[in-house]
């Protein structure tokens, strides 16, 4: 085993440990802010795994989209709904956790068995390595053109949908009279959409 092989192995093992430990921390820690930052670490480690697989474009996309957008969005959500609340104790909570852990262990055993037993068609064709970015571009503008365009429409829909869902209909009081500007909004508001807990 020469030096580059052992370095690759060491990198893989380190990144795997970071991914597994970080994801365990994400689901087990009680403080949600720690979970969010650990999630960012897990995303970075996954990007490192992509670099190890010679996929620099996808690694950059992972860092930009997941760490830069999704993780920040999650942190914003935590800040917006940050209320210390005592969770009601539920009966059978421990039994539930143990049961679901059993189910997940069964799923894990199944997946591991499939991973190890299936005769994969190894070795495949030679990897193109650093030309992967060029090849992804060719794919996106030839045989995956329709999904590419649909993805742009999907992103637009998600953007508009998120704005519509998260918009807050604020009743702005008129400066001169002190009356609320939008009277019809008050009349329509049968459900308490305007509870202000701040």
């Amino acid at each position, binding site marked *: 085993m020469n030096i580059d092989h052992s370095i690759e192995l060491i990198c893989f093992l380190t990144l795997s440990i970071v991914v597994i430990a970080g994801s365990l921390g994400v689901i087990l820690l009680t403080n949600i802010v720690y979970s969010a930052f650990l999630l960012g670490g897990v*995303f970075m480690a996954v990007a490192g795994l992509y670099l190890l697989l010679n996929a620099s474009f996808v690694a950059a996309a992972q860092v930009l989209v997941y760490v830069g957008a999704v993780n920040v969005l999650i942190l914003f959500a935590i800040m917006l709904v940050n209320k210390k609340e005592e969770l009601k104790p539920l009966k059978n909570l421990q039994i539930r956790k143990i049961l679901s852990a059993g189910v997940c262990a069964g799923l894990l055993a199944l997946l591991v068995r499939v991973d190890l037993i299936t005769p994969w068609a190894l070795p495949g064709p030679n990897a193109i390595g650093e030309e992967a970015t060029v090849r992804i571009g060719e794919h996106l503008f030839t045989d995956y053109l329709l999904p590419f365009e649909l993805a742009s429409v999907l992103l637009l829909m998600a953007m508009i*949908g998120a704005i519509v*869902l998260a918009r807050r209909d604020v009743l702005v009081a008129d400066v001169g009279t002190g009356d609320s500007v939008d009277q019809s909004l008050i009349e329509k508001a049968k459900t308490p959409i305007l509870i202000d807990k701040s």
Partner: protein
Amino acid sequence: MFHNSAEPVTLQAYLLLASFLFCIGVWGLINSRNAVRVLMSIELMLNAVNINLMAFSSYLDGELIRGQVFTVFVITVAAAEAAVGLAILLSLYRNRVTIDMENFNLLRW
């Protein structure tokens, strides 16, 4: 199996890592009572699937790398899902003033 001389890290090692990550995500999805943590678990599961796709793309489909294209699409859809999910969460929080998953039972039988 994991230490042959040709390749230091085998395909199976990546698949095992992805399996562990996916199962951790499933457990977190079932057991989290904080709604934000449920969304985080979904992101973990999506990342596990992405690792799988990337490993297959690198080891079995090295010339066409269709797995990498799929990963790019999965990342796109995950970003859209996170945005809409967090917007729904904010709207829910405004209506119910809690983020405990046990209180979101309006459509339960």
